[in-house]
């Protein structure tokens, strides 16, 4: 099949998948409620820390600090739940039906990933609007705003790629849900919720090695520092790298599963 029809199929399936996601707001609610709640809780609990002189180098306020963590958390939540849907589809015989349809095989996966990116763009925009309304400000202006939205979309691509690959490989929603605590752990062991500078011992070492820290800090850079290349490198390139590897993994799982049918 031509690459033209693959792109067309991907676009059609992306649109269908986005509609599907928006039609079940109950599934999306936690990925909005929890990150915003944690951000509110964090900035109310840790506001005294923001008064410390050494915090000024990190962010102007704890709310400003918490924005990037909330975005990352929200995008990861939403992407995982989308992959859970895919696993449920597979469990209910989705691929058998698929084989009977003329749709390009790869666009099945790419359509899902595309929809995760679209949802992420909407989600990040809404998050930023809420944070700005509550007094946060983006240090790098419009470019930073775009930087954050793109970073969110790339992160959604990476995460939904990984989780969809897992969903296709396992075909079990339980496995996808079971991988979720790992994501949660990855976030806690990073600077998503609290500055790495204040951590101590082995915990700080782990956070320093955790790529999540660098993605978050790149995004925090857009929020809290003057514009510089480092922000794009960390907030864009790391998720992009992971995304490419994840898509390769996902497509391999897809081919294996289709071959096994």
């Amino acid at each position, binding site marked *: 099949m031509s690459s033209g029809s693959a792109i067309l199929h991907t676009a059609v399936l992306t649109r269908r998948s986005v509609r599907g996601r928006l039609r079940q707001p109950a599934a999306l609610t936690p990925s909005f409620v929890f990150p915003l709640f944690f951000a509110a*809780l964090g900035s*109310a609990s840790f506001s005294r820390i923001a008064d410390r002189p050494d915090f000024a180098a990190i962010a102007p306020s704890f709310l400003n600090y918490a924005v990037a963590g909330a975005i990352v958390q929200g995008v990861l939540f939403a992407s995982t739940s989308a992959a859970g849907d895919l696993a449920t589809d597979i469990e209910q015989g989705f691929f058998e039906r698929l084989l009977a349809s003329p749709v390009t095989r790869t666009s099945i996966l790419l359509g899902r990933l595309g929809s995760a990116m679209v949802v992420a763009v909407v989600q990040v925009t809404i998050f930023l609007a809420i944070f700005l309304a509550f007094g946060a400000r983006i240090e790098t202006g419009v470019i930073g705003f775009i930087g954050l939205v793109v970073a969110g979309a790339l992160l959604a691509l990476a995460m939904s790629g990984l989780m969809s690959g897992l969903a296709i490989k396992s075909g079990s929603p339980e496995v996808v849900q079971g991988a979720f*605590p790992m994501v949660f752990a990855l976030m806690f*062991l990073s600077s998503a919720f*609290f500055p790495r500078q204040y951590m*101590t011992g082995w915990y700080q070492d782990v956070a320093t090695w955790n790529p999540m820290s660098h993605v978050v800090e790149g995004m925090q850079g857009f929020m809290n520092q003057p514009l510089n290349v480092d922000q794009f490198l960390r907030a864009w390139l790391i998720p992009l790298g992971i995304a490419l590897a994840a898509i390769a993994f996902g497509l391999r799982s897809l081919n294996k599963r289709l071959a096994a049918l």
Partner: protein
Amino acid sequence: MNTATTSATTSTTYFTRPSAVVGALVRRTMLRVRRMPSAFVPSIAMPVFQLIAFSGAFGAAVRFAGIANAMDWYVPLNAIQGASFGAMGVSFGLINDMQTGFFDRLLMAPTRRWSLVVGPIAGSIARAALPILLVILVGFLGGMNVPGGPLAIVMVIVAAAGVSTTASAFALGLTYRMRNMGAATLTQFAIFFTIFLSTSQVPLSSMASWLHAVARINPMTNVLRLARQGLLGDVTWDQTWGGLVALAAMLALSGWFALSGLKSLEK
């Protein structure tokens, strides 16, 4: 006709002891844990992970507030949280029993209704014992201070068991009324917000205005004060009674909620 009736009913009828029913239901809970450990592992792993994550990530915030070791602050919180996870298990278990019809078997038993409520709650406390003890153990390994002595640990356990009871009773009440998985989710939400909108992360004095206002009236703040006192200083009546009153009030309310929910099943 008479002969038929007589031969079927000459047997002695016994009285059911509610305490025996509670015991049997606790044994059943533990038996299910042993036979389906995969459902139990997260309830052990989560509180321990959160203890490590909270202490590691937010440790500085607690230390800046003048607390020697982050474990002193977070062990009671995560013991309570671990205990409250059991409520989800109670809700799932009840829904499962409702779906298989096993719950009807319990309802048709000639036993006091309260024993059917207390049974699963007691089972939940039994289930919570391991996570609570594990959190305390990890706390010791992490250098937790215990200036209040053995009584400090007793206070942690009292608070955790009390919250476990309340959360389980609430879960039962909600599940009796909703009769679907939504009850477990709502229970989780309720527990989550009750715990986090208290002094879960930092002392009242470090909080910004809105959270301070909420946490001050949240009974969970009193319970946490009760639980933490022996790790931050001496165990005193001053820091105990407020927690006990809060626990008693929450227990009374959730107990009533559960019992009335059970009654509503017949309606």
